[in-house]
């Protein structure tokens, strides 16, 4: 049975990749970077957990050793969860072994030993069907596969040499200032059409009658620094029942982050704004006029 090595610093994603591997009747081997991680991973239904021991502080310190290990054991695939650490490891291993990597697969299955996977490009506008033969790497975002049925397996400790060149000076937890938008059921989101920071109140008033959270585009969070988190390809991905975009043009990177919303509503002055192509309902107009009017109209319903 062909071995598939799995690494994710998110146990849920490790369980989802394990589910994929088991349904494909392959052997799932989870890589754990600590004893604590191994204790969680061994219950996810995989065939084995390899507990890496060594002097590394970051999983990528073991990239060369993991590349060597998967090659020596004749692995078929390395599947990493699509987080910063997972992607870094996946691409580092692919670079060392000189093999292909399919990033952020949206679907995957094996035809024999050939992996057939789907990935998206251009911010999700185009879907590619890829075929990878021989050893390769994939990265897998959360929620793509169903988890494996929980079952316990053994843990084997493997000492690996670590690359000590990068030193960790400090770790600073990111204090999430806002709510977790990825779990919000309703979101009112602002873009550059909102001229002044105090005008966010217009969005807050609508959000209050809707029972919605406030979100925004990248420029609002990163350039104007009005709100902590932004929605989009490099930011948070959301899937609310209602996504209300106001003064937000809807660049493809933003639309990528909202495409799984059940209902998208847009208000913008520019009738050619791409957000309208992604919207179920839209009004072309000045948000300063339309949104307060809508807030009142909803109150009266």
């Amino acid at each position: 049975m062909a071995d598939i090595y799995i690494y994710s610093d998110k146990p849920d994603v490790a369980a989802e990749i394990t589910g994929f591997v088991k349904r494909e009747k392959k052997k799932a081997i989870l890589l754990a970077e600590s004893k604590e991680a191994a204790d969680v991973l061994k219950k996810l239904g995989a065939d084995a957990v390899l507990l890496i021991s060594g002097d590394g502080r970051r999983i990528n310190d073991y990239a060369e050793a993991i590349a060597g290990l998967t090659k020596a054991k004749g692995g078929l695939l390395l599947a990493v969860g699509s987080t910063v650490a997972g992607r870094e490891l996946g691409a580092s291993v692919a670079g060392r072994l000189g093999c292909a990597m399919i990033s952020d697969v949206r679907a995957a299955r094996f035809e024999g030993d050939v992996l057939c996977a789907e990935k998206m490009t251009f911010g999700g506008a185009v879907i590619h069907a890829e075929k990878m033969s021989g050893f390769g790497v994939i990265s897998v975002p959360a929620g793509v596969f169903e988890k494996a049925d929980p079952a316990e397996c053994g843990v084997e400790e493997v000492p690996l040499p670590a690359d000590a060149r990068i030193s960790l000076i400090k770790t600073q937890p990111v204090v999430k200032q806002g709510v977790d938008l990825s779990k919000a059921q309703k979101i009112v989101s602002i873009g550059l059409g909102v001229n002044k920071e105090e005008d966010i109140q217009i969005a807050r008033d609508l959000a209050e009658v809707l029972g919605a959270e406030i979100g925004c585009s990248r420029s609002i969070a990163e350039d104007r620094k009005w709100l902590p988190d932004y929605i989009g390809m490099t930011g948070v991905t959301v899937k609310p029942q209602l996504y209300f975009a106001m003064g937000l043009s809807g660049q493809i990177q933003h639309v990528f982050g909202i495409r799984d919303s059940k209902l998208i509503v847009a208000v913008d002055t520019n009738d050619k704004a791409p957000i309208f192509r992604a919207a179920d309902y839209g009004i072309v107009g000045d948000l300063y006029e339309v949104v307060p009017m809508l807030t009142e109209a909803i109150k009266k319903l």
Partner: protein
Amino acid sequence: MAKIVACYKWVIDETDIRVKDDLSIDVSRAQRKLSDYDRNTIEAAVRAAKEAGAQAVGLTFGTDKIKPSLKEALSRGLTEVYWVASDKAESADGKITANILAAAIRTIKDVSVVLCTDGSSDSFARQTAPRIAAILGWPVVTGVRQLEIAGDAATVTQARENSWETLRAPLPAVFAVLPEINPAPIPGLMAIVSAAKKPNTELKAEDLGASFETNVRTAGAKGYAMDRKNIMFTEGAMADRVRELALALRKEGVL
């Protein structure tokens, strides 16, 4: 003088992609542009070079359509651009691209830092920096939102999902930077004019000796059809349109 290399990609402007009714893709009329966040990366290289007393240069790999990118990249403050053109670039995957870029970096003298954007606006595969580092045997950090070069090491802040990690890497090293690293100012007229006089160097793919072989192939591509109602309220006074929208939202059960 040490060189800081900003890798950039000249990509199809995604807003010009046409998805036909049968979901096939038409890019025949698409314009090309500098991949969105590469503007920030080039600026990061220019700033880092200024602080470190180094030279910021550009490197790109693409088809012969990349030539207009040279002036754009140079107008953003780079002193020189190296470019590799090949008709095979259109179908190159992450492996081939990194092979070419790494081979090109080997030919550029005194490279201390390579900066890539964390992800390009076309494929957004986020592979290039770790792959280049693996090929060159240099350390790598991705997701970098702060970069400081001092002497023969760089201190960087990596934005992970729940933490920021401050890391120190000896140089030479490769970093994949996020757009948050710095803004990307629009080049002024003088910068655009002087860009035409700056040097650019073509590196021939065949001279680099990098492999164009890979073990993945694209079996098909189709447009993603977003299933949306696209109902626009355009009739009557604004108050009427707004009321219609409110009623529609109630009918959808989201109020």
